[in-house]
């Protein structure tokens, strides 16, 4: 657990769902992501990745959102949902 990198939203495979554990990284980005509904305990689903590998299409709070890989890496996922 200690040496392991935390799993982020960027690691979630397409059409899989997980729970948000917490946010990390730049405070401004954290605040923006949280405002869009990515708060702890929330279900988030990876819908698909754009044709060129970035950005990502995700689903949260019953709507779809596009985030780049950098932003997805700010979303740490709860590990028990694996």
């Amino acid at each position, binding site marked *: 657990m200690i040496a392991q990198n935390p799993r982020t939203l960027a690691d979630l495979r397409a059409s899989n769902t997980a729970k948000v554990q917490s946010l990390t990284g730049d405070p*401004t980005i954290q605040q923006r992501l*949280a*405002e869009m509904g990515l708060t702890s305990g929330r279900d988030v689903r990876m*819908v698909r990745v754009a044709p*060129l*590998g970035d*950005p990502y299409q995700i689903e949260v709070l019953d*709507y*779809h959102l*596009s985030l780049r890989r950098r932003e997805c890496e700010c979303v740490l996922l709860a590990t028990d949902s694996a």
Partner: protein
Amino acid sequence: MSSTQATTEAIPVIALLGNPNAGKTSVFNMLTGARRQVANYPGVTVEKTSGIIRRQSRDFELLDLPGTYSLTARSPDEFVVTEILLGQRDDTNPLAAAVVVIDATNLERNLFLATQVLESNLPTVIALNMTDIAERRGITIDSDKLAQRLGVPVIPIVASAGKGRDALVDAIEKAVGGTKPKPICQWPDAVNDSVDALTAEIARLNGSIGPMTPYEVRRCILDANGEVERRLLAHTSNDGSLADFIYEQRKSIEAAGQAPANLEAEVRYACISRIVDGCIERNPGVRAPRSERLDNLLTHRILGTIVFVIVMTAVFSSVFSWAAPLMDAIEGVFATLGGWVSSSLSEGLLATFLTDGVIAGVGGVLVFLPQIMILIALITLLEDCGYLARAAFLMDRVLRVFGLGGRGFVPLLSSFACAIPGVMATRTIECPKERLITILIAPLMACSARIPVYTIFVAAFIPQKTVWGFLPLQGLVFAGMYFFGIIAAAIAALVFKNLLAGRTPTPFILELPSYKAPSVKLILWRTLDRAKAFLQSAGTIILAMSIIIWALLYFPRPASLETQVRTDMQQAGITDEGEIENAVAGEYLRNSVMGRIGKAIEPAVKPLGWDWKIGMAAMASFPAREVVVSTLGIIYNLGDATDEESPALREKLQAAKWPDGGKVYTIPVVLSIMVFFALCCQCGATVAVIKRETNSWKWATIAFTYMTVLAYIGALVVYQVGTRIS
């Protein structure tokens, strides 16, 4: 504002707020009858859009605030909303109430903004929009229960169909002067303590900012690098101790167990879940939304890209093919008008002023109206049904290479019709650097004003051959000029990306709204609105510029010059009156102010392969590049009833010779002219709109200068290399 008590009958101002994609524009149109007044807030690039809600008893002013997901102010532009809500702007009357538009299909996220507005202490009405779409998706919302829990009226509406207008207006009327809502989210003690501590500290330091409301103090603590904090620090003279104090407060909140950056969202969303619990019912029998299945195709790795290319090709080909007959019709009308004026007025100053200056100048610009309207209509259609967000999603990775982002896609697409709506559309780009790069390169896209320029030179000088047996060479050169503009824009973007301060990429957090049937009302309204704006600029700036150019090409005209030419022609044995008149007109032109300038700048344009006539036509085209066609017409003694299809002008160009007998328009010269027009910032209206959108002459000057220098160098290289190859 207190001193203006005499005007007690001033109409109450109601603010309209809502998330992007919540249908705020439709609500605005429904309430005000789509009549709006647009102005700018000084100091920022936010547009002040307002309209009037008419009631039998009294009128209300509806102030449309920019669509936003949150009231967090990260820039001066975003801070305008906070200032207006708190009644702190001198140019806006204090608000009487607020209306928050909420998308019923996405209740929880939309309530985030609503709960923030409820804390601003204004009587509030919630407009629960798109209830029809929610119903179709099996979502039922108990609006009465929701209203009870929020403590403000919640009115279900379908704004695109005009449903629920009366109930909404009644609620607004009741809210004005009514009770203020109570905040519904409880803040943790650590936050309340920090707010108290910072309030006391601000009072102690006694800076020039004056007392702040608890709302602002809380924003100051919660928004790291936010606008409220920036202003507070700027107005409080101190040694950085206040910045440290704020930092300490954030630390203490964090120590209490919550990161300040996402504390607000955690608190609000927890509060929102409690509110909506039992107010919202989902029918599990309704199948997964159609939207998701459409996205399986439209954002698919391979199919999505294919559809994207097809859609964009369809947009462009319809813009050109649908507009062609309309453009012909407009040209016809202006030609008739010009003919009518010149035949009904006796020949003289007034007649030439009206036909050559006013009608030819404004008409030359108005022909682009159909193209602009068709493109705006198609873009609005794609935007309203939800596809443009997907296009931005698909293009983001490509645009990022050039320091741009997915949000730059729509402005650049619009710039193919006209850079003016393109530059205006950059408002949706939140990153200042990304927005600036997009504004600076948008005028390089081949706008419709370049079409007449390309048309005349391609038709006159590119042979009607085919390449590889089936590709028409003329068409290839035409398409090549479009790609040339795109490549030049890409290179310019790369340079600006490295030159400008600031960092990219910034967050790209873009909602992909559910697909829906586009609203015909909205498309018509937006198209007519933009058409009106275009006509206004044609009626003012372009009209003024046309008159100036005409005057510079017309004066001075001493009668002695005509006598001189006639004498010379008679001595040469030429008696044809038409020929003599053409020669007289040509001599007047060479003698005019512009003619002399053209002669003076000839040494500068010679390295581009140009003679003084081309140089002069290029000079005359700085207010609007399409002017070159009519200017060349005048210059080649044809009078300016010439349009780009005129075979006579084409033949004159083909026959034009240097004094030594060599042809003026060789292929390198023609390419050099086209490259110049592709790159040069020959559009007064674009310069003006860049000035307005960036709020400074600095960027307008930079855009003008870099494009003009680039155009000169580009034309120089093309000509010099071209002559050496051929």
